[in-house]
Structure formats: structure tokens, C-alpha cells
């Protein structure tokens, strides 16, 4: 086994065996699932608290009050033969009613003649619920006043939504086999990639930096530089931590899959509706080969992007002596990612612009920007070139980090200046 392998092994096993690793590996999925379930559970809990609203409807035949439908959270009670003054005296506390809904007799003409006089603090959701329902009743009433036959059917049928799918014209005229593209899905994918990359770098990139500094602070470095080359060491550290990240993410994925399989029946149908939008978007991709290509690129870019940024952290760790000194570097390193996300937004408007092209070649932004472009059918040579540049930059930066580390040892105990950094790179 070569030395890089031995160092990867050490970084990996030392981290994986730590209590903190085990705890975060188990706790994170629980927290994530909790985070997803919490709103649903809160919603369920919320409905048990029924609010009674008394309705003082002054319209002819009380057509609004009679049409109001009570549900799990709101119960309407229509008042008859009572003046507004009497009602507000009678229902003046929370026990008797949550509030009084007053509807003016000329509500059809003056849509602001509706008021909720509440005994407790109202909520935006409740107010929207009431106004939605009242608006619907009024709209139906208004339509009814035109005396159209089969109105209900017309209303139901007129509720139309189109579903636009885009295809890339390959000139063959064979539309069946044209690649389907989807802006919505591509946005989702590149957003996920951007977030994942950012998360990975924050979580694990920092570890690369700390582990390089650890060598210096514990003075293991003297023994290390007389046992293996700094490049082997840097590579071992970066790949070791990348392996930890991969294993942790795999375990998370597995736990979340298992947990969601078990928990899905417990999630109310309404909550599921919200997530089904995403699966509908991905379904639009059609072509299985294209999905495979997308996932392969996703994997390659996320790994490459992580490795490149990890090597930048390694270089930062090599040029400083303490974690405090490293702080300033960490912020600078994150800037290109933010820049990538900004460019990504503009890519949706014009995926073939010069900016989009160059940012998908520059390795610091390419993982995010190229992933945003791929759903818009980028030529393969561009993807391959961009990946080559990305991985070559990773090797180069690691070499650079090793160089700074190796030569930086001369200077132990003294902060290097930018001039020193330049000199180190030239020194044989």
C-alpha cells in the first residue's frame, strides 16, 4: 500500500471512529426528518383548536352567511335577529366566540363592507381563509345573477392550466425522440448541487484546513516530512476527508430513505401534495439516458468541486500556524461559490451566453454553473473540457498546497508575507 493510501486510512478511521462522527451521522437525519415533519405536525395540531366565529350577515336572505362552510379549524355560527351592537355586547369574550364577522348588506357593491371583530389576536391564515371563502361566494352569486344555464359545469370546465414541455430540435423531425428539457427541473438540480457543494465545503473543507494546521501545532510535521512527500500527505488528507464525507452522506441517504418509507403513511395527504410538484418536474425529463448523464455529471462535479475547494483549504492551512489566522482565508475561499450561484441565476435566462460559458470553464464556478447549463443541452466537448480543467486544477492546487507546506516549515513561528508565499513557490 502506498503512503497516500496509509494517510487516507489514518484520516478516515480516526474521524469515523470519533464519537462526534457517530453522533452527527445519526442525529442529522433525525433532525432533517424532524424539520420536514414539524410543519405538518404543527398543522395537524393546529386544526384541533377550533375557532368559533359568529356571523352577522346583513345581506338579503343572508346568502353569504348561509353559504359559509365550517371546517376543522373554523366553525361559523349564523346570527339572526340581532343588531351589531347587541352582538358585540353578547359575544365580548373569547369563551363565547373567537370573533364576530360582520357582512354589510351592500357587500356586492362595496367589497370592503366586511369586518372581523375579534376577541383574540387573529392570524393571517384565518383572515385569508375567510376572505377567500367570501370572495368565492360573492363571485358565484354574481355569476348566478346573469341566469346562465349549466353554470356549475361551465365553472368547473373553465378551470384550465396548461403544461408546457420544451424539446430540443435536432432537425430529424422525429419529435418522439427529441430530448425533452425542463427549465424548472434544471433549476431544481443546479440549486441542489449548489447547496450540496456549499454544505460539503462548509462541513468538510474546514476539516481539511484544521487537519493541516493540526500537523503543525502538534509538531508531527517534522516526522511527516521525513517519512513521506508533502504531496502524498496533502493528497492523503484531502482524499481521506472526502471519503469520510462520502460515507457520512451515504449513511444519511440510507437512513432518510428508510425513515421516509416508514413515515410516509403517517404524513397527511395534504402535506404530500407540496412535494409532488418536484417529482412532477423531474418526470418531465423523460429520456432515461439523459437522467443518467445528469446524475453522472452531478456526481463528477460535486466530487471535483469538493476536491478543488478542499485543496484550497489545504493551501490556506499550509500557510498559517493557527486556526485563528486561517479564518480570513476561509471567507475568501467561499466567495467564488457565491459568485457561481449568482451566475447560475443568469444562466436560466441565457444558457449560452459568454458569461455562462466562461464561468462553466473556470474551475471555481464550473461545478455550479455547468450543472445549471447541462439541462439546456451543452455540447459534450464543453462538459469534458470543463471536467478536465476542474480535476487538473485540483491536482495543481494540491501540489501548490504541498509546496507551501513544505517550504513554509522553514518559517515556522513567523507569519509569511505575500512575498514569502511567492518565493516559496519558486524555491526548488
Amino acid at each position, binding site marked *: 500500500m502506498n503512503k497516500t493510501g496509509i494517510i487516507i486510512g489514518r484520516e478516515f478511521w*480516526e474521524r469515523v471512529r470519533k464519537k462526534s462522527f457517530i453522533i452527527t451521522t445519526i442525529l442529522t437525519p433525525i433532525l432533517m426528518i424532524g424539520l420536514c415533519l414539524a410543519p405538518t405536525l404543527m398543522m395537524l395540531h393546529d386544526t384541533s383548536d377550533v375557532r368559533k366565529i359568529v356571523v352577522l350577515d346583513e345581506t338579503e336572505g343572508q346568502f353569504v352567511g348561509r353559504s359559509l362552510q365550517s371546517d376543522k379549524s373554523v366553525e361559523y355560527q349564523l346570527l339572526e335577529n340581532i343588531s351589531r351592537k347587541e352582538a358585540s355586547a353578547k359575544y365580548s369574550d373569547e369563551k363565547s366566540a373567537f370573533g364576530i364577522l360582520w357582512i354589510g348588506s351592500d357587500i356586492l357593491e362595496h367589497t370592503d363592507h366586511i369586518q372581523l371583530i375579534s376577541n383574540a389576536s387573529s392570524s393571517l391564515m384565518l383572515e385569508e381563509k375567510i376572505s377567500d371563502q367570501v370572495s368565492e361566494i360573492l363571485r358565484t352569486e354574481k355569476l348566478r345573477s346573469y341566469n346562465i344555464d349549466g353554470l356549475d359545469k361551465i365553472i368547473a370546465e373553465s378551470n384550465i392550466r396548461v403544461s408546457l414541455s420544451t424539446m430540443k430540435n435536432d432537425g430529424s423531425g422525429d419529435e418522439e425522440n427529441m430530448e425533452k428539457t425542463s427549465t424548472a427541473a434544471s433549476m431544481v438540480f443546479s440549486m441542489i448541487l449548489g447547496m450540496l457543494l456549499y454544505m460539503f465545503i462548509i462541513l468538510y473543507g474546514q476539516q481539511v484546513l484544521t487537519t493541516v494546521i493540526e500537523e503543525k501545532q502538534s509538531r508531527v510535521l517534522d516526522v511527516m516530512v521525513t517519512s513521506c512527500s508533502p504531496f502524498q500527505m496533502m493528497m492523503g488528507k484531502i482524499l481521506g476527508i472526502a471519503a469520510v464525507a462520502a460515507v457520512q452522506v451515504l449513511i444519511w441517504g440510507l437512513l432518510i430513505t428508510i425513515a421516509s418509507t416508514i413515515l410516509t403513511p403517517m404524513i397527511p395527504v395534504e402535506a404530500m401534495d407540496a412535494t409532488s410538484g418536484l417529482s412532477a418536474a423531474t418526470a418531465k425529463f423523460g429520456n432515461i439516458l439523459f437522467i443518467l448523464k445528469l446524475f453522472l455529471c452531478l456526481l463528477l462535479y460535486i466530487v471535483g468541486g469538493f476536491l478543488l475547494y478542499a485543496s484550497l483549504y489545504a493551501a490556506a492551512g499550509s500557510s498559517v500556524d493557527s486556526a485563528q489566522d486561517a479564518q480570513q482565508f476561509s471567507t475568501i475561499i467561499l466567495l467564488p461559490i457565491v459568485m457561481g450561484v449568482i451566475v447560475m441565476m443568469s444562466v436560466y435566462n441565457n444558457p449560452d451566453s459568454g458569461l455562462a460559458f466562461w464561468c462553466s470553464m473556470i474551475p471555481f464556478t464550473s461545478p455550479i454553473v455547468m450543472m445549471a447549463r447541462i439541462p439546456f443541452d451543452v455540447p459534450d466537448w464543453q462538459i469534458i473540457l470543463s471536467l478536465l480543467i476542474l480535476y487538473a486544477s485540483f491536482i495543481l492546487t494540491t501540489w501548490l498546497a504541498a509546496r507551501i507546506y513544505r517550504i513554509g516549515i522553514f518559517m515556522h513561528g513567523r507569519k509569511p508575507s505575500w512575498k514569502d508565499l511567492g518565493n516559496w513557490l519558486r524555491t526548488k
Partner: protein
Amino acid sequence: MNPILKIENVSKTYTGHKALDDVSLEIPQGSIYGLLGPNGAGKTTLIRVVNRITIPDCGKVIFDGHEITIDDIFSIGYMPEERGLYKKMRVGDQAMFFARLKGMEITKANKKLHEWFDRLEMSDWWGKKIEDLSKGMAQKVQFICTVVHEPKLLIFDEPFSGFDPINADILKREILGLRDRGATVIFSTHNMESVEEICDDITLINKSHNILSGSVDEIRRKAGGNTFLVTYKDLEQPLDELLSGKAECIGLPEGIIGGYTQQKVHIQSDDYVRDVIALLNGSSRLRSFQEVIPSMNDIFIRAVNGTL
């Protein structure tokens, strides 16, 4: 015997001061070689030059007949002055890690390490973390990490600092054992007793210069310069007169114990030693005649002060 390591005209300047100035020395194969010198003399810099941690401004390091390469460095055993071990790592894992980095197979490393741990009575520590060990214990672990791959050349920077006398003795015994099994050992130290006990040869570095090199016996003998302490009584004539032409007294008598006078004399040549003994024996009651070899401590101080 061919030297295993030759240092030729090495100089190294850091910003503002010269750490090594034209230092040359030869380290014989299979010897224990002491690098002595006051703090800041340049010992550690010299060791780091040999290790290629520091690149010299000029000069060469020749190892085993060729200019030293990075692969040679990877094969030697080096224990730095500031001991470095991963604090959170378990002792056994750590020793295995370094042994394997030095190119040992897993099974062989495991076997050899257990042998060493047993010999130094450290077997209970295998599963402990470094941060739970005392400083001396951690140093023993580091010692094993340095020697387990049985390198031809071993370099220890201040190996005895931080050890109690019992552990220092164990360490000396092991260093002698390593030499007897064929290794060459270089170590830097301030501990002059250990130099007398285990070093075959030394170099004394002061203010970035090599001011004294050679075998310990020779250096002490030379520094002693045929000085003897004689103890006698009932001398028939003054000592200077008796020995005139062959030896002279150094200073006043050291003391008189039970009627016996103790006096240091300097004999002009090795050839006269027997004559002097004969003369003294013939004209006094000679009780003892003893060569005075200065301690390395004396030599160190005199050499650094320029009075050797």
C-alpha cells in the same frame, strides 16, 4: 571504515543570523555520534539540514557514498526535539501508522511493535490515547516509532530531555543496543554525562562553527594533556627537582590527606610516564598515580569559552 554520513562545508543563513558557518564533519558507520553545543549553536539546524527539512545555502550532505536523496531521508529514523504525535490517536494505531509510513508490512510492523512494547514494559498503553500519557511515556512511544523500522541511520534531537534517570538509562541501553545491531546513531544533547557514557565520537558546535571533532577518548585525553594526580609522602627532595626535565607540577598541592600529599603534575611526553613513576616510587612512599581526564562537562565549558 567509510563514514556513513559526511557533511561538507554546510552553511545556512536565516534572515538576520548565520545558523551554520562552513560546518564539515564525518560520522563513522556503526558509531554513536554526539552533536554538542550550547543553546542556539546550530545543532538542530544541522540535523534539519541532514534531514532535508531545511535546505542549506551551500555545502553537501553525503550519505553512504552519494549525495543524500529524499528516499534516503524517508528510510532514516528521526526523533525531533519537539516531539510530535497525534494527541487524539491511540498509541498502537499511531505506532502502526508511522511504521507503515516507513514502509513496513502490516504483520511485520505489528509483530515488531509488540516486541518493543513488551521490552519497554509499555504493553498496557497500546489502546490508550497519547493525550492520556505523561510526557515521558509519550517520548517512549515516539522513540519506538523512530526505531521500529530498523533504519541504518538514526537521528535523535535531545533524546534525554524530559526523561527521569531510570528511563534515561533505559533509553541509553536501547541506543547502545541499536548500535550493536549495526545502526549509526546521531544525537544532539546538553547532557554531558550521557556523552561520556555512550558516545563514540562527538562534534562540538558553537556559534554556528564546528569547534571540536573526534572520538570522545581522544578528545578527553588531549584535553587532559598528560596530566596526572600523584599521592605520596616522605619525599626526599622537592618534587619539581626530582622530576626536572621530565615533568612539572601544576599549581599547588591539591591537599594533604592523612600525611599524603596530592599534587597534579604535567608529564612532558608519553615516554616519560614510566620514568616518572619509577622516580617517585624510588624516593617516596607512592600511594597512587592516576591520569586526570577532564570530564566532557569541563571540556564543553572550556571549549565554548575558548580556553581549551
